[in-house]
């Protein structure tokens, strides 16, 4: 235990800011997961692997001399079609089955993606340098890498665009209708098959954006996807489905929680603390649920 983080207000501030910037990025990935979970009732274990694949797109652009920031435009376009392809090949066969089947299917996709990426891109840890520099605040006591600020900014832009799209566009309305009641939507003339494909594509595109941002801010590696899946799962569990402000808040909350756990317990317990929090929240939800049931009796 180390309480350094509370002894120096500057470190507390640094931890909060780092956490928020990181959390916004998590929230973007989680939003994609919430969307397709809500619409298709599928928990996508391959979410993190889609993120990493997006990261590789930005990395290869960087390798060929294109600034990796363009990856946030290119990666989602490519990933949208990857998403559609995964839907047509696998997901459409499990979309009406129970949750367990979809978890197994996406777990399989996850393993396949990991191995394919390892085969195609090698097992080296790579990153794309943005050369964005650093913002120093409070007499150089608080440091914010511009790449993190850029990531958070782009995540927010994409989230806002998506909300507007979901509200205003025809497809967005169809997606929301399908999420509410797929059968009713179908009866009223919504092509749910198309909606499902588009939803999965949009989710993959969001993962692509997040991956490009991660390759700029952190590192990528074919086997690094799982922690992102877990974090987004966790955020969605806390926020609930179809609750965008909730996803954003719980994303940032998780980011800050992770940073503080890192300072107080040590970096080695960072992911562990996320798991612990997940268990606690699941237990709490169950507890709340059981109390409700008793009340109903």
């Amino acid at each position: 235990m180390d309480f350094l983080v509370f002894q120096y207000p500057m470190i507390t501030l640094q931890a909060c800011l780092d956490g928020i910037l990181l959390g916004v990025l998590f929230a973007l990935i989680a939003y994609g997961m919430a969307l397709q979970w809500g619409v298709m009732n599928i928990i996508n274990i391959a979410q993190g692997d889609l993120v990493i694949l997006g990261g590789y797109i930005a990395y290869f652009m960087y390798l060929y001399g294109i600034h990796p920031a363009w990856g946030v435009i290119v990666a989602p376009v490519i990933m949208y079609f990857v998403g559609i392809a995964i839907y047509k090949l696998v997901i459409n066969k499990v979309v009406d089955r129970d949750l367990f089947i979809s978890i197994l299917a996406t777990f399989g996709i996850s393993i396949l993606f990991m191995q394919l990426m390892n085969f195609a891109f090698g097992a080296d840890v790579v990153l794309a340098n943005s050369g964005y520099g650093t913002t120093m605040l409070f007499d150089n006591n608080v440091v914010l890498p511009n790449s993190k600020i850029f990531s958070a900014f782009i995540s927010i832009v994409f989230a806002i665009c998506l909300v507007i799209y979901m509200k205003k566009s025809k497809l967005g309305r169809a997606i929301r209708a399908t999420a509410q009641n797929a059968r009713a939507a179908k009866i009223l003339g919504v092509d749910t098959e198309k909606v499902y494909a588009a939803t999965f594509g949009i989710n993959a595109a969001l993962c692509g954006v997040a991956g490009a941002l991660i390759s700029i801010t952190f590192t990528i590696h074919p086997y690094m996807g799982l922690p992102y899946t877990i974090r987004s799962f966790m955020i969605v569990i806390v926020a609930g489905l179809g609750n965008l402000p909730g996803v954003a808040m719980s994303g940032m909350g998780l980011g800050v929680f992770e940073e503080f756990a890192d300072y107080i317990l040590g970096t080695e317990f960072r992911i562990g603390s996320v798991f612990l929090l997940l268990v606690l929240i699941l237990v709490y939800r169950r507890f709340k649920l059981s109390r409700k049931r008793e009340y109903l009796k």
Partner: protein
Amino acid sequence: MRLNKIILSFVSALVILFSTSVASFAKVVGDKIILGAAISLTGKYSSNGVHTQNGYNMAVDRINSMGGVKVGGKTYKFDIIYYDDESNPKRAAQLAERLISQDGVEFMLGPYSSGLTKAIAPVTEKYGVPMVEANGASRSLFTKGYKYLFAVLAPANLYLDVAIETAVELNGGKPVTIAQAFEQDAFSQDVRLGILDAAERTGSKIIIDDKLPKELNDMAATLVKVKQMKPDVLVVSGHTKGALTAIRQIAEMKVDVPMLAMTHCDAAKLSKQHGKNSQYALCASQWHKSLTYKDDFFKDGMTYAADFEKEFGYDPPYQSAESSAALLVFKDAFERANSFDQKKVRDALAATNMQTFYGNIKFAPGGQNVDKPMVLFQVMCDASGKCENKVVAPLKWASAKLIHPIPKWSER
């Protein structure tokens, strides 16, 4: 008639049994000495697995083309049976078992990484199969009393203690303050033990002692602490991702520290991936091509590097060099034992005392090589931004002078 048939089938059964057992239970087939190796060709260690395999293959070709191995007046050639262990310790142990009991291999080469070597060593030990390994440096490998394990490389606890000693020396012999961050794996934790020893020896104080997770890609928290507490030395070990993450975030957060020491810089291709930001980082290495050790097969480091590049198209990392050295050790041991008896070869290995292009090799009773110091190189860049690794310690091999303290970010 019936009896004849029974005898005939009995004899033919015996013949079949005998012929298959000869084919599969022979360590030496014709003029070939067959070695076995489980290597990570897929999975997370696949890059270094390939470096290891290339090193082995390079040495096999070279030794075979230069006369092979002479045992009992006859010349033999090396051959290696490879299996892919998928970077998975359980799989590695199964494959070792298979190599020994099904393929009849009686001499083994090591896999890549300490973790996989740890998984294989109990198997080779159980069957009394001598294993020369080149990529498992964890100290715990050498404290278990293994009799058939020999490592050509220096143990992990010696990786970075040179850095601490150098820092103390540069501080006028006075103790220094150390910040350290290590991944939680066998190798990095051994490097950490080495630092603890060095700190105790020199009276230095460890003011930050962080452990990093396996999924490491953010160490901002550690670096914020470093910024606040201003240690004299920052030590980081977390394989390639640790090295890459540390350099990226140190540069982004403008962390000023007089000395930065790391492992896995060359495997991470630091200077290529980070360019000038990686400048002044001190890196522990088992080998560097500019060292002047010599042998008859590869001449010296520079020639080895040139030949390796010609064959495989890239500059050899130390993982390849040490793997090549393992074959030289085997050849030397076979010739001194003048036999393929496992016990005799094991004893000959234990008595090894030789120089290779990779370094001197002499095994302690635990199996680790005690005759080859680690080297430290520093990433140095010229004005055009081209960066190179230059050996700075130990002084005997130094090709450049250590730049210390590292200039502040504001002055770069």
